[in-house]
């Protein structure tokens, strides 16, 4: 399997990469003023500023955020050996949102400040929130063995964290508008500094997961098999959960709550190729990036010059895809 599969993994990676570049180019050309050929913008100062300081960072930011979510989703599914696990179902996204909400309330300011320090602070708050929520979920589920317990605990933590966020908005109505926009998800405010930060975290998390992918491979054979192979399961698992929380937290801190990418991306990759976990994680990241790029361009183009909240769009697209998957599985009776 592995030889044939890795042969198919490379073309898929190349295809995804080319598609991403293509959509990035389209993304750079699409904005409030409709389709503009970016090559013509050289001559005009303002068009150039719009492209260089607004469209390019937000487009690359959409890719980075999508990739982070795709990576986090693939990690979650592999670590918890559960195809339904995703950053949202384990509560980490709502935890991250709560962390960011707390940061808003205590430090004021709006979501995307210019200084990189503020960016790192927000990312840190989101990370702490995400880790806290995942740990709480694991605690409630008493480990990852029971799928049902895990999912239920994730839902509970998600709901409670969501309620806590609503409570924050209720106590501090002046932070309401910021939080509301944040909960809808948007790439409109991503500048270069957030962009670099997300790409940095993406490279770090991708490297870490690639380096530890042998554990994920062993784990896919079952927990006892993995242990009998002499894998330091507990430590590596903790590390990977932290990486997942970091990826989710970073994406949420900069683009708000964007649903379904983390769940859908690995599923699509698996439906195209069957590969080892290391490649799966990287391919899911690429796929997640591509999905969010497409959603971002659509969000800008559909109602131009107005913009749809991207979280709304991904929820529609992702929900539709899952429904399709469910139907196909039912008709094939291979559930």
């Amino acid at each position, binding site marked *: 399997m592995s030889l044939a599969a890795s042969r198919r993994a490379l073309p898929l990676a190349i295809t995804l990469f080319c598609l991403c570049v293509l959509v990035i180019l389209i993304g750079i050309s699409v904005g409030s003023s409709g389709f503009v050929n970016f090559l013509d913008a050289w001559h005009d100062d303002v068009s150039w500023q719009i492209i260089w300081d607004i469209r390019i960072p937000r487009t690359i930011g959409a890719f980075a955020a999508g990739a982070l979510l795709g990576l986090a989703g693939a990690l979650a599914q592999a670590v918890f050996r559960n195809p339904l696990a995703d950053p949202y179902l384990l509560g980490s996204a709502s935890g991250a949102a709560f962390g960011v909400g707390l940061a808003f309330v205590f430090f004021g300011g709006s979501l*995307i400040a210019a200084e990189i320090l503020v960016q790192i602070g927000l990312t840190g708050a989101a990370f702490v929130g995400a880790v806290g929520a995942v740990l709480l979920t694991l605690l409630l589920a008493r480990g990852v063995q029971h799928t049902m317990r895990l999912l239920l605990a994730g839902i509970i933590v998600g709901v409670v964290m969501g309620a806590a966020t609503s409570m924050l908005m209720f106590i501090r109505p002046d932070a309401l*508008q910021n939080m509301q926009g944040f909960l809808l998800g948007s790439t409109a405010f991503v500048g270069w500094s957030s962009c670099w930060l997300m790409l940095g975290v993406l490279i770090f998390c991708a490297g870490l997961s690639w380096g530890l992918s042998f554990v994920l491979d062993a784990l896919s054979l079952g927990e006892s098999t993995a242990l009998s192979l002499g894998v330091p399961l507990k430590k590596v698992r903790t590390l990977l959960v932290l990486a997942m929380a970091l990826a989710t937290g970073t994406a949420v801190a900069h683009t708000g709550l964007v649903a379904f990418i983390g769940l859908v991306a690995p599923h699509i990759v698996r439906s195209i190729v069957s590969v080892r976990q290391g490649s799966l994680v990287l391919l899911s990241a690429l796929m997640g990036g591509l999905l969010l790029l497409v959603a971002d361009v659509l969000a800008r183009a559909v109602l131009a010059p107005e913009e749809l909240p991207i979280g709304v769009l991904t929820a529609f697209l992702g929900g539709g895809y899952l429904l399709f998957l469910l139907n196909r599985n039912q008709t094939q009776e291979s559930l």
Partner: protein
Amino acid sequence: MLKSFAKRGMVCALLLSWSFACLLPNVVRAVVLRDDRQMDVTISKSPQRIVSLLPSLTETVCALGQCSRLVGVDRYSNWPESIVKLPRMGGGIDPNIESIVALKPDLVLMATSARGVERLQSLGLTVLALEPKNHADIQRTLRVIGQALGLSSVDSERTWQALDAGLREVSQSIPNYAKSQKVYFEVSPVPYGAGASSFIGETLQRLGAQNILPASMGAFPQVNPEFVVRAQPDIIMVGDSNLSNMLARPGWKKLTAMQSQRVCTFTKNESEVLSRPGPRMVEAARIMAKCLIDKSSQLQKASP
């Protein structure tokens, strides 16, 4: 770039004679203003291309007679008529960064609570974040925007004096029998009410009405429906779209104000006038005064 322009301008002014410097006061002068974020904003020349992202700020600019300097507004700004056709830049939650930059504004006015304030600033735009919430804020906002636009302080002061005089006139027009009425003003069907410390509450107070929501509850508190039933307001003020919701609340049909139809409903346009803390506050006071007078005379007739 603006800074270097200003510096160069100042050097020029020093080198050339005073008489020549007097010819270009607006170009040379830079003002530093403190906005509602408590940040100092430097405005290096009198701005001519203004984007406003809050209806009350749009109205303030126009009240100062500078409507023609606006080049873009948010999607909710709809007064005065002359700005209706201006390009729309999204709203407070989703300002359209790209369209704003494309307009090349030299001043952006927006709420402190809006998103994207820092983003716009980091793109090199001059952003003045102001969020008037009460009468004192309206006066201060008039002054700050007046200074930002390079108007003399007399202009903004005069505009405020006119508003204040208008308010006084409206409150004097209210007959004694219409005073000290207990009023409940509902702003949204959650229900949120207008408390005594909100600008609506302040206007009501100047009109001599009693707000059933004391200042201690905050500007726009979420009200327990039971609280209103217990307080038994004489008059209820509400937007016309909220009325059916109100009637459906348990126990509310039996409120005396409901039964004797002492409920004022406001059209969408009237609700906008009432809910925007800006230069249309006199018009807002007139709407509320009319309600107080109409409903109180009913009250007087009903109880001999």
